């Protein structure tokens, strides 16, 4: 079989002792990043890209390291959700609903084991789904011309903006800001400088890593100082870790359903892991006979969203690898990683550089097994790390952000720009404007313009060419729906009230 022989090739590359070591390190670091509140997967991967790049890792090693971090962060997010009632990252939000009540009832260990196994089931199944669906989608993607790609980028912006924000205008504005920043620098077609104002540093454009680290990590610093990081202390005692086989059997259905829902949510552009875990939880709750026990410590309410968010994380790699269109903030950062490594995702990646794709998939499978071992028997290690006080952690993270950018570019100008993006990110978060579309805009801006212009060359300036093929029309309709539909669905899909995050209540 094709898949199996490809997979064997992937394992041959990825299973060397050195890459295995990198996978273990990546999983470890990733779980810590996920577990620490305020440091999410996108943050963590963004911080590590410049560092792994300056270390001179080759493409496959860097890919293995950072995708392990990505999956690790997805696993780790649940730890602080369960123990602290603070989601370690955004997708883990739904896990607080039943995870923290379980912990308060003295069942923290069970909750951690069930959610760890659920994470494994979701992520592993999603990686297999990725193996099956990605080559198929890559085949479809060969039919895409410039007009279809332009429509596809619109779809990504529209669904991400529509689903990810409460205010359509704000997310569209954020996307436009990102696109506007992407225009800075030399125009590829004509070679003319645009928006550089004579500044030599801007000729190459704004480095997306500078923007990502600024918008995510530096903005977090300002936010943290304002809130004073009151929320970092273990409130729940953790007993001995035993595997509750009976509970695992009871929740296996929830895991399977969560995996399916999460994977589909992940494959859809713009949805991402947060939506995956949300839908998985809501579906599990509404299909259950004992609806009342959800929110009060039902293990199925822990298993479903965790399987959902990890499956979505894997599913989100499908459009990212085959079409070059990320479906969420974290996959946007992974796209940045691929671009940094000079790997252009798209259908050609599967035919021209199969070793990259399949060693990545092999690395994901390896990372999952490593993560299962780390997150179930060894979970206590991470619980101890969670007790590192914020006043050490935050300055450390800030300095790592600076080191990464400095060692990558060596210029004060880029670091100043990073601080500037930090301020922008802080203001945008205050105003409830999502920052992920900005990143997406910076990443996709040039390709989007390029495709538009190529389409116009093909059609000799006829704009109706953008709507000339059935695929393009379908994408435009989907984009319109993705942007507008959430306005109407918002009333139906009301999110459940968030658990009380008041620090005083955590101590009990």
């Amino acid at each position, binding site marked *: 079989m094709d898949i199996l022989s490809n997979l064997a090739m992937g394992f041959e590359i990825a299973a060397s002792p050195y890459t295995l070591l990198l996978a273990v390190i990546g999983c470890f670091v990733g779980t810590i990043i996920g577990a620490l509140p305020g440091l999410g997967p996108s943050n963590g991967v963004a911080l590590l890209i410049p560092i792994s790049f300056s270390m001179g890792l080759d493409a496959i090693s860097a890919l293995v390291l950072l995708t392990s971090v990505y999956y690790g962060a997805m696993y780790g997010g649940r730890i602080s959700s369960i123990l602290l009632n603070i989601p370690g990252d955004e997708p883990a939000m739904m896990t607080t609903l039943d995870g923290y009540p379980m912990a308060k009832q003295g069942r923290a260990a069970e909750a951690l084991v069930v959610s760890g196994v659920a994470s494994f089931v979701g992520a592993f199944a999603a990686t297999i789904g990725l193996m099956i669906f990605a080559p198929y989608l890559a085949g479809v993607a060969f039919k895409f011309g410039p007009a279809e790609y332009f429509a596809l980028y619109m779809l990504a912006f529209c669904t991400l903006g529509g689903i990810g924000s409460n205010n359509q205008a704000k997310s569209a504005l954020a996307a436009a800001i990102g696109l506007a920043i992407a225009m800075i620098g030399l125009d590829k*077609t004509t070679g003319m400088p645009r928006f550089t104002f004579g500044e030599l540093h801007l000729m190459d454009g704004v480095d997306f890593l500078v923007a990502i680290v600024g918008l995510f990590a530096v903005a977090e610093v300002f936010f943290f100082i304002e809130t004073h990081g009151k929320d970092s202390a273990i409130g729940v005692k953790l007993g001995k870790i035993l595997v509750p086989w009976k509970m695992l059997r009871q929740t296996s259905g929830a895991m399977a359903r969560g995996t399916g829902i999460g994977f589909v949510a992940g494959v859809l552009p713009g949805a991402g892991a947060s939506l995956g875990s949300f839908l998985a939880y809501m579906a599990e709750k509404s299909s259950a006979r004992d609806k009342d026990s959800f929110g009060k410590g039902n293990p199925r309410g822990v298993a479903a969203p965790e399987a959902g968010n990890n499956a979505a994380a894997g599913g989100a790699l499908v459009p990212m690898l085959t079409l070059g269109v990320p479906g969420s903030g974290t996959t946007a950062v992974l796209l940045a990683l691929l671009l940094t490594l000079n790997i252009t995702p798209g259908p050609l990646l599967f035919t021209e550089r199969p070793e990259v794709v399949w060693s990545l998939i092999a690395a994901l499978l390896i990372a999952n097994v490593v993560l299962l071992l780390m997150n179930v028997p060894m979970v206590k290690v991470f619980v101890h790390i969670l007790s590192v006080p914020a006043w*050490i952690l*935050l*300055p450390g993270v800030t300095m790592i952000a600076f080191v990464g950018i400095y060692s990558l570019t060596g210029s004060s100008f880029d670091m*100043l720009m990073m*601080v500037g993006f930090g301020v922008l990110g802080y203001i945008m978060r205050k105003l409830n404007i999502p920052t992920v579309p900005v990143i997406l805009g910076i990443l996709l801006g040039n390709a989007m313009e390029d495709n538009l212009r190529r389409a116009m*060359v093909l059609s000799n300036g006829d704009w109706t060419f953008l709507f000339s093929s059935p695929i393009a029309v379908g994408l435009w309709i989907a984009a319109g729906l993705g942007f507008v539909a959430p306005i109407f669905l918002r009333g139906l899909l009301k999110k459940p009230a968030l658990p009380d995050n008041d620090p005083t209540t955590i101590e009990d």
Partner: protein
Amino acid sequence: MIRGDRIFGSVMIVIALGYILSARGIETSFMSDPVGPRVFPYLIAVVMILCSLVMVLRPDPEADWPAGPMVAQLAIAFAVLVGYAYSISPLGFIIPTAIASGVLCWQIAGHPLRAAMTGVGLGVGLWVLFRLILGLGLRGLPAGWGF
């Protein structure tokens, strides 16, 4: 009533207008495509203006902005980061890092001794991690001091 959304929207409108003005000045070479380098920036600026107008006309409820002393704290953090960006090249890694992380630590924990220890610890510790273990090209001390 003035709200954050209105201010941000107005600022973005001004920026978008400036963007259009700047895009008008982009030179095209004789070998250009039907679209040219100006049209896409124009489209972006139009989207920016439309969205900003929505923000100005229909602002969301006001965000919870920090009050006086907290603004000062944020300004200090900002100044520290800017200063750090300027000083890491001439002064090497360890000294600016110790000072910057010490100040940030003091801002969060509010404990001078603890902050000083964290600063020195992070300055030296991160240098060891990045320079000695990961092998990044960072200079530890100011030029001419060794390392």
